[in-house]
Structure formats: structure tokens, C-alpha cells
């Protein structure tokens, strides 16, 4: 049986992971690191879902988590494919440099 004290701690961990991830997305310029940071944010959310699910004695949190994992996998595939294509095109892997869509 998990102690009731654990839930706020886990929520705090989730918040910390989310913050670290979002800062990573905002400050890093390497797309690979940005993708990793997004993964971190998603998993922070997953943790919060599971935590709340357990706290409220409901399986909804875990179902949501599974959905998020699937979406995260798809997102990683697309993201990594884009990164590898950019690399193959001989471009530098710098997201500030990849700004042609402005035009």
C-alpha cells in the first residue's frame, strides 16, 4: 500500500521534469536535444496522469498514459525522420537556422 504522502511528491517530480523539459525546448538549438526535451515533458505528464489515477482510484490515468506513449512514439518517428533528412541535405543541425517557412 502506497503512503498517501507519496502523491504530492510524485506531482512535484512531474512538475520538475516538465519544467526541465520545457526549458530544454526553449534554450537548446540542436533538434535532437529538443526532441529529447519534448519526450521528457511528455513523460512528466504521464507521471502526473498515473499519479492522479492512482490517487483517485481510477484507471483513466493509465489509459491516457498509454495513449500519450503511442502518440509520443509517432511524434518521435516523424521528428527523427525530419532530423535525418535535414542532416542528409547537408545542413547544419540548428533549429534557428531552419527558418525558411517564414517566407
Amino acid at each position, binding site marked *: 500500500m502506497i503512503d498517501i504522502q507519496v502523491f504530492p511528491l510524485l506531482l512535484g517530480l512531474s512538475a520538475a521534469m516538465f519544467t526541465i523539459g*520545457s526549458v530544454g*525546448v*526553449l534554450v537548446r538549438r540542436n533538434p535532437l536535444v*529538443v526532441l529529447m526535451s519534448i519526450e521528457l515533458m511528455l513523460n512528466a505528464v504521464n507521471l502526473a496522469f498515473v499519479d492522479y489515477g492512482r490517487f483517485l482510484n481510477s484507471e483513466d490515468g493509465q489509459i491516457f498514459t498509454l495513449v500519450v506513449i503511442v502518440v509520443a512514439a509517432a511524434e518521435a518517428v516523424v521528428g527523427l525522420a525530419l532530423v535525418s533528412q535535414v542532416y542528409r541535405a547537408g545542413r547544419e543541425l540548428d*533549429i*534557428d537556422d*531552419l*527558418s*525558411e*517557412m*517564414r*517566407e
Partner: protein
Amino acid sequence: MIPGPPPGMNTTLAGTLAVLLFAFPLAGCLGNALLGPRLGRRFCNIVGPGVVLAGFVCAVIALVAVLGAHEDAKSTTVTLWSWIDLGVHGLKVNVDITFDPLSVLMCLVITGVGFLIHWYSVGYMEHDESPWRFFSYMNLFIFSMLLLVLAADLVILIIGWAMVALSSYLLIGYYYDRPSAVAAARKAFITQVIGDVALYIAAFMIVTNLKVPSLQLPTIFANAGDSFTQGGGLITGICVLLAIGAFAKSAQFPLHTWLPDAMEGPTPVSALIHAATMVTAGVYLIARFHTLFDLAPIAQGVVACVGMGTAVMAGIIALSQIDIKRVIAYSTMSQIGLMIFAVGIGAYSAGMFHFATHAVFKALLFMAAGNVIHALHDEQDIRLMGGLGITMRRTELCFLSGSLALAGIPIWAGFFSKEELLGLGSLHGPWAPTLYAVGVGVNILTGIYAFRLFYTVFRGTPQTARTYAAHEAPPSMLMPVAILAIGSFVAGWALLLGIPGVVGRFFLADFLDPVFTANGGHLISEPSQGAALATVLIGTAGSLIGAGLARQWWYQRKPDAQAVAGRVPRLLTQLSLHKFYFDELYDALFVKPTRRLARELRTVVEPEYADGWVESIGRAATSLSETFRMLQTGRLRDYATGMLVAASAFVVVLAVIVR
């Protein structure tokens, strides 16, 4: 045992026939348009006339069924499907069709004469580049015309009414690289639309004023007597509007100017649409709405006067025209004027009789003229013809048969129908004997212009060397003409078997009269035997005098036609030559002001007023976009920041404000 209703036509049979009558020409239209370019000329030449022949077979079966029906159940109305149904008191449009003697007669003429003209077209359009387009339009016309005459619902009738105008437009403008053809097509269509609008208004007035609101023609006719007062202003207005619709379709004064110009289309089109069928739709419309017209004697009088007036006017114009097709076009206008006169005085059967014989001999005249035009390589000026009887003996004989029928020479078809119609006109109609006298005048005019054409084209001395080089038409163009030539000789007897009041039994009247006696209608009385004989003799004398004068002026040239023309008042010859100045009048009254208005709008109103605010909207949008465009930096991190800030703000709003 309860006596049931008298046995009418089998409804299953009627429904099947109607579907087939619609399906054949429609399939021909689509097949020619979609498969024709791929499968080539031979395909079109078989399918184009073939579907019309199939339609004719259906029409003959329908005729047998209607003839076999009981005297009191001649009219069979079938609902093919319900098209629009908005509840018990709402709008209800059914695709209803009626088989009765009137619609069956129309179907027979449309598909029968129509088939012969399609057959003729195979030869006439031999050198045309796109026979698929031609036959597709022709089949579309047959479909539209059948829809119009079989419709038992006002909406369906109006759809058919508008679709014949459309197919006429397409076929007049068939040679779309000729500016004059395109202009003629436009003129015809605009005139038709004027009539269409009058018809729509009449339809609205009928439906809104009917005791039992309904769009179905049988219901309308059954309730007309209760809903409208005899001779009242409302019913008179409705009938005048219906008549305006009919005048536009049938090229009657004052909406007649489009018909001569419509001769820009290929000759088979002139024969089919602008002589035999579409232009007589106005006669059909008035005959079909006879229940309403019987309630409005003033409107009937207007119709009769306009019909006779147009007959005289067109007859005078036809005397001086020099284009072979235009002469026949004016004679068509004149003959339809007589039909309109007949239905205007209540002689519906007589009007339809003249419609049937006229369809035969006028299609014949047009197609024989087409042979001449073809042989002379598209020459239409009769002053350059003459003596064609030498090289085109068979065409000449056929044309002669048509001219005899047109002029109303005894025992040819036109004689029976015209004398029947005029005989009834001597008793009925406004200023009864006067209009009859005018009708005899029309007979004289008809004789003159019919034989002027014959003598100038086929007799006398050839005017150009081309006459000697002319060749008789090929069999595919000669056979249909020959069939119609025999038809215009026998059609009168076949449909009549005698003249009413004089001898025999009026077969066609017996056939059609149940239509016109339904819903409390009554037939107009026939002249007594002596009076009928007198009118026939006077009318025939008129026709013979006309033909004789033409022979004297244009064949024997003693005195010469020019000399005669010099002796009549100059005003009359000028009016005839300039078609009573109607084109000039309409040009000055409608065309020029409209063009001027358009030009003013284009040069003044549009740049100075309209363009200003339209462009300012554009400028406002441009400057706004300049501002928003700065948000789009293209940098991923800017967007991520925006998302994060917005998401955080959202959470704050939820947590602080909404709680």
C-alpha cells in the same frame, strides 16, 4: 355489382411508354455527346435518327391505346415519381405525364416528322465537322419537346418549355464561329425568356388563386370553373400572360422578330424547330389551357386578333424577302398566326389540325429548300437561283407539293385544315365576319408568296452558271423529302375524311374533341352546310387567285412583278421590304438604350464609384496583414515560447478566474 370507372388506358402501359419516350431521346443526346467523338460519324448517323424512330414507335403504341380507350376516359395521367413533396399543405411537384388525344397527336408529329428530319440531317450534315454535337442537340430538343407536351404538372411543363428554348438557342448558334448566328441565337433566347417570365407569372397567379392549390394540370382545370369568375379581370390577366408566353414561343406579334433571324441555324433545325414543332408550342399551350381561356373571352379575342394580325403582317413581309429560308420563315409565322387565331376563337381542334398538316408541309418546304441550298453551295438568295427545275427535277416536284399544300390548293393538306379553320372563323371570334375576310386576304397572300418562291427558284431562266452545275440531292436527303411530299398530299384526307358540314366525318375532331369538352368545356358550333360550303368556296377562290397572280407576275411576267410593285402604295412596299421596321424599332427602343446604359456603367459608375470601395477593402486587408506578418518569424523557439506562454496563461485563467 358496382359499375367501375370506364376503362381508360392501362396506367402501367402509359407509364412505360412515357419513360421510353423520355429515355430514348435522352439516351441519344448523352450517347452522341459522350460516345460520338470516339465512335465517329457512323455511330451518330445511326443513333441520332434511331432514337427518334424508337420514340415514334412508342407514340404509335400510345395512339392505339388512346384510340382504344373508352370515350369518357381518353385522358390518362400517370405519376412517374414524386419530385418535391413538402407535406400535406406544402409544395408538391410530381413528374406527372398525361396521355390524351392532344398530347398523343403532338408526340406523333414530334417524333414522326422529327425522325424524317433527323434522317435528312444525316445527308445534310455529311460534311460537318461535329455531327455528334448536332445530333446531341437535336435529340435534346426532341426530349424537351416531349417533356413539354406530355407534362401534366405545371412545373414540369415549364421545365420543358424552357428546355426547348435552350435547345433552340444551341441549334441556332450551331455555327458558333459566325457572329450573325451567335447574335441570332441570343436574340431568340432573350425573346423566349420574355415569354417565359410571362408564363411564370401566370403560373403563380393560377396556383395562388386556385381554390385547391395544386400544380397538377388536371386539378387546375377541374377547379378553374369554381375558382375564377367567368370573364373576370383575374382570369383575363392570367390568360393574357399565358398568351404572351405563347406569342414569344410561336413568334407572334410583338415578339416575332427572332424567328427570321433563327434561320442562321442549319436547315434541318429550321425544319424541325422553327417550322414543325417548337414554334407551334404556343398553339399547344393555349389548346392545353383551353379551360382557362374559355373563361376569359377578352383574352381569347386578343389572341385571335394578334394571330390574324401576325398572319397578315408576315404574309406581306414574305412577299419581298429575297432569302429562300426567310421567305419560308415568314410563311411559318403567318401560318402559325392562323393557328393562334383558331385557338383564339375556340376552334381548338381546327388549330391542332392545321398544326399537324403544317408540320408536314412546312418541314417539307424547308428540307427541299435545304436541297437547293446544298446544291448551290450555301447560296440562299433567290435572285441568284431560277431554272433549278432543269437539274433538280425531284426536289422541284416535292417543293411543288409543299407549295400547293401551303397555298391551300384543293385536295392538298393545307386546303382542308385552312378552310376548316377559316370556316369556323366566319362564325366566331371578335368581329366575326371581318376577321374571316382578313383570313381570305391571308389566303391570297399565301398563294402569292408560296408560288413566287416556287417560280423564282425552279422556273424561269437560270440566273447564274451554278444552276447548271447543281446536282440533285443524294437519296438520304431525297427520301425523307419525298415521304413528306406524299404526306402533304394525303395528310389532309387522312386526318379529316371530309369537311365538317359539307361532307364526311371530321376524324381528327372526333379524336381531339374529348380533350376540349372535358371540365365543362363546350365546342363552338359549326357553320351550317350552306355557309360552310360558301366559306370553303370563297377561301379556295382566294388561294387560287393568289397562286394565279404569282404565276402571272413571276412566271409569265405579264405584267412583271416589279411593275406591279411600282403601282401599289410605296409605303406598303417599303414596310414589306423592311419587315415593318420592327427590328429598327426594337433596336432603338431596347437594344441601343441597354448598350448605352452598360457603357455608362462601365465608363462612369464602375471606375468612380464601385471600384473605390472595393479597392479600399483590399487595401485594408493588405495593411492589416503587414502587421500580423511580423509574428511569423520562422523560428521554432519563438513558436514554442508562444505556445508555452499561452498554455500557462490558460492554466492561470482556469485556476484563478474560473474556479
